[in-house]
């Protein structure tokens, strides 16, 4: 394992029957970066981060987070260690108020000033004025923002964003990019993203998955120039 990495995975495998969703992935994530994970549909991206976050059990391989072997830890223990995951399909508490959604994330960390902390996190995504609104009544784009606010409210060392811009309008995507750039320095971001423009603008480093394996890894310019990546995306 690389000593400087916030998160390292070695030989991760997860098959579903005959489907080799994740098939021997080695992965290192440096602290303080925005690291994007891309790949064609069915490349195994969501399964891979499912293994990292603990939502899906690892078949074989090892995961270290912050120097600790977390391979067998349940998901909630990993969150407590500072590994936060925001859902690809928006998964907020639709029946609760927006305030309660964020307060749930905040209250595990802060014994005091729950309200002040929660409101600060809502202000960051521009939802402060709607704190008492029922979360399920928010527009889709705002629900995505609330989801991210809940992730940030966990004050994680690593924030995994699973397709955060999916279904957002262009103006909303610009707001999202500014938001993610604003959290660099406070947290490391692992970004699973289809929108190449977002990836190229935000990422310090990119890993490309294809068929459950790492196809390429490097800086954005390197990955863009990589013929194997072009082939995987363009079917060449």
């Amino acid at each position: 394992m690389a000593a400087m990495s916030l998160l390292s995975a070695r030989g991760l495998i997860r098959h579903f029957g005959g489907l080799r969703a994740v098939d021997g992935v080695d992965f290192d994530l440096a602290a303080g970066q925005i690291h994007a994970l891309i790949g064609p549909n069915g490349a195994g991206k969501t399964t891979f981060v499912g293994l990292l976050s603990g939502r899906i059990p690892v078949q074989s391989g090892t995961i270290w987070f912050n120097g600790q072997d977390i391979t067998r830890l349940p998901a909630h223990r990993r969150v407590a260690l500072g590994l936060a995951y925001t859902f690809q399909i928006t998964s907020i508490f639709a029946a609760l108020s927006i305030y309660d959604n964020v307060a749930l994330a905040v209250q595990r960390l802060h014994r005091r000033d729950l309200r002040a902390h929660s409101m600060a996190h809502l202000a960051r995504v521009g939802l402060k004025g709607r704190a008492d609104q029922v979360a399920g009544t928010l527009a889709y784009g705002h629900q995505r923002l609330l989801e991210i606010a809940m992730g940030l409210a966990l004050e994680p060392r690593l924030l995994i964003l699973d397709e955060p811009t999916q279904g957002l309008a262009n103006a909303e995507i610009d707001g999202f990019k500014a938001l993610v750039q604003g959290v660099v320095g406070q947290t490391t971001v692992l970004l699973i993203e289809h929108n190449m423009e977002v990836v190229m603008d935000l990422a310090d480093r990119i890993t490309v998955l294809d068929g459950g394996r790492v196809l390429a890894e490097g800086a954005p310019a390197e990955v863009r120039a990589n013929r194997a990546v072009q082939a995987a995306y363009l079917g060449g």
Partner: protein
Amino acid sequence: MRVWGFHLAVVALLFGLQFVLPPYHFTNFARIMVLAVFAMGYNIAFGVTGLLSLGHALLLAAGMYGTGLAISVLGWAALPALLAGLAAGGVMALAAGVLALRTAGVAFMIVTLMFAQAGYLTILYFGPVTGGDEGLVLAQGARVIGGVDLAADTPRYLVALALFAFALLANLALVRSRLGRVMVAMRENEERSRMLGYNPFAVKLAALVISGLYAGAAGAAYAVLFGYVGASFAGIQYSILPLLWVLLGGAGVVLGPLVGVLVMFYLIDLASGYTTAHLLVVGLALLVLVLFAPKGILGSLRERAWPWLP
């Protein structure tokens, strides 16, 4: 502030009722308040945390027999026997919960149902100690605390009210606490709660133990206040009744259990004055409820008029 004031006003109203209620209803209300404590416990598991248990009779019976046997077999005084019943409810919920919470949904319903049936059969099996089908009648001399005879109408009413008031305010504090928020989160979206760092098993177990303490307290109080401990309270009926009470009054609403027990009690009471098929009337009332107010009486009120009602 308004919330606490409203609930205290309900307690004050129940206190005042003792001066106007005729004797028959006086006893009924004492019974209703004790059963409402049981229903509140059920509401904490089902209404707040989303755990649909079909085995809460086990927890009621644990409290009832914990107190009843402490008095009849061990010869304990009423006060320590009450505490034994309270503890029995909590311990039984812990033991059953550790096993049953390995399941969820329909499997959880079936496992809790089976646990309760096992408890019921255990009570019958040890008939020589538990009184079996006939149950135990507790001697009046054993139902005294500090020289006050709890079998008398007024002390009985006041003890039932004190228990109810404490249970109600504790319930209100719970749902407004951080733990209460996490319990609701488990009901609403367990997977998301887990990804916020909460252990679903631990939160649900805590909810069940609190629920068990409520059921245990209600069973213990019933034994001492009404002097009877019976296997019928461990039967399937007393697992289904709290579910119906809570649905009728409003699942997840703190005052829902009281309203549910009260309405159901008098519905049966009135209907049985006219017909022996009083359960038919109850069934029809529940149909009407499902069709026109699926959130229960207070649940609908909260939705339409009183959004502040916890």
